[in-house]
């Protein structure tokens, strides 16, 4: 009985923790999903699907301290899978506020959108969100050196575009 109570309490705390993370990272979640999907509607779907997926599986996460990285990774993986499914299907027309700006090459986000997807992702996580190289490596499950070389490539390519 005590165990059940304890378990119940812990789950509720982790539910709130989960919600807090979603609230804190909803901006980043959208940017990451949009970065891969390149489409607002699909990006929204990806984030919503990822949140539901993560919510259902949250109890399987042994270390709740890793929840933030875990959710962000789910977003990226869900988006990549969605791209694979969407492959060769014509993109849904995007909202005007996102399309109009595509012509404005002074906007750094437009320049970033011309980079390779893996470079875009590290730019968003490292420069936009402010994660450290180590944190990015944990989120993406890639070595720190790979993060650094992707950042380096991204910077070089951005310099050429600017």
């Amino acid at each position, binding site marked *: 009985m005590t165990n059940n109570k304890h378990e119940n309490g812990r789950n509720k705390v982790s539910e709130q923790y989960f*919600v807090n993370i979603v609230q804190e990272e909803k901006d980043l979640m959208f940017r990451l999903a949009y970065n891969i999907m390149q489409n607002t509607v699909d990006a929204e779907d990806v984030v919503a699907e990822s949140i539901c997926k993560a919510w259902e599986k949250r109890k399987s996460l042994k270390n709740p301290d890793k929840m933030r990285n875990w959710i962000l990774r789910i977003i990226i993986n869900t988006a990549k899978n969605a791209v694979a499914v969407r492959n060769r299907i014509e993109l849904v027309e995007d909202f005007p506020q996102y399309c109009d700006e595509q012509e404005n090459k002074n906007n750094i986000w437009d320049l970033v959108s011309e980079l390779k997807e893996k470079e875009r992702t590290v730019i968003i996580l490292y420069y936009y969100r402010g994660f450290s*190289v180590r944190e990015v490596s944990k989120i993406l499950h890639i070595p720190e050196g790979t993060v650094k070389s992707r950042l380096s490539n991204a910077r070089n390519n951005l310099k050429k575009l600017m």
Partner: protein
Amino acid sequence: MDKSFEDQIKYKLIKDVEPLPDSYTERISTLIEQLQESKAERTIKFNIKYAAIILGLFVLGASGTNAAVHVYQQYLSSMSQTEKEQLNKKTQRLLEELDHFSRDLSKEERGKIESLRKKYENDGMFPEEKIIEIDHKDEVMKGELVYCYENSTFYLPDEELTDEDILKIIDFWERRDYAVKEKNKGERGLIKEQKISQEEAVRIAKNILQKLYKLEMENAESIVEFDPAEVSDEEAIPSYLISFTGQALSCDAIVEIDAKEGIVKRVAIDDKSKEECVSGIKVDEDRCRKCLNEIYSFLSVLGEKDYVDEIRLIYKYRKDGTLNRGNIKYLVKLNDESAYVFLYSVNTQTIYQFYEMTTYKDVLKQEKDNAKIQKQSGIMTKNKVIMK
């Protein structure tokens, strides 16, 4: 690294960012509400960055109280080197950048944090004792104010925090900020320690690419970045990141050279015509074993061939027997317990990346942990010794 360019990127990303679409914000809010329907308890998160902003305002406001500020600075600078190093090391290992409180802070307690922080900085009001720091949750002492590194949480007594308790929390934040800042200063100082010049690093990088990939490097354009940033938990190891591009090369390449010793820490090439990582390729273990010769020839060039202790073959595959990302990993253990990781692309049939790691055991553990996580998503891992 071009710091001003990096700052420019950061600034523009924030400045130019499009607001989130209303449809998205509404959708997420609705989703969160649905999730919250089952909530009963709340944990409070206190944003360190927000605290830092408050601190910044107070420091500005305190410009007229030089003597007190001097006491405050003297107090922080009296921290021993060991204390600073330990505090910084533990902070760097934190999994989150936010601190938590084990319970909600009352309005009064929040107010006191602000007022006592002013007194801490301006009047030199410090706690009589330091907060108790613990590494793991199971060390928490009920009713005692402690900070737990495992979950970045201040465990608070149930009753209202006293001034001394709040000063202990403020003092912990201040000492932590100071320790991290000092470490960063130290890392910047490492630039002076670099013994290998930029030209020498480029020469080493060109040489290794010529030897390993037979690339014609004479006319290759290079961009060099000096990276003083942390490489491991223990220390910052300055290195050069040298990128080679240009039409003369069949692939782009990045080489990382240790700035102290000139050691090749990492090489990554990016084929211009083919993707290194492609899914849907069937696993061929015989092919994987044949690649061992190539690994050995790389190790020979790196001067490590005679020190190989063991080589593991690691790959991720799906239920249909195809490789998850089309690549194979070779984990080489050297007899000094360090390791090299080689990544082989089945699509381009090249070792497209390798890097040095200081501890084989840690790499292996990371691999095993990743395998467990990925298994939940249906990605299986083959991890076996193929040479001993």
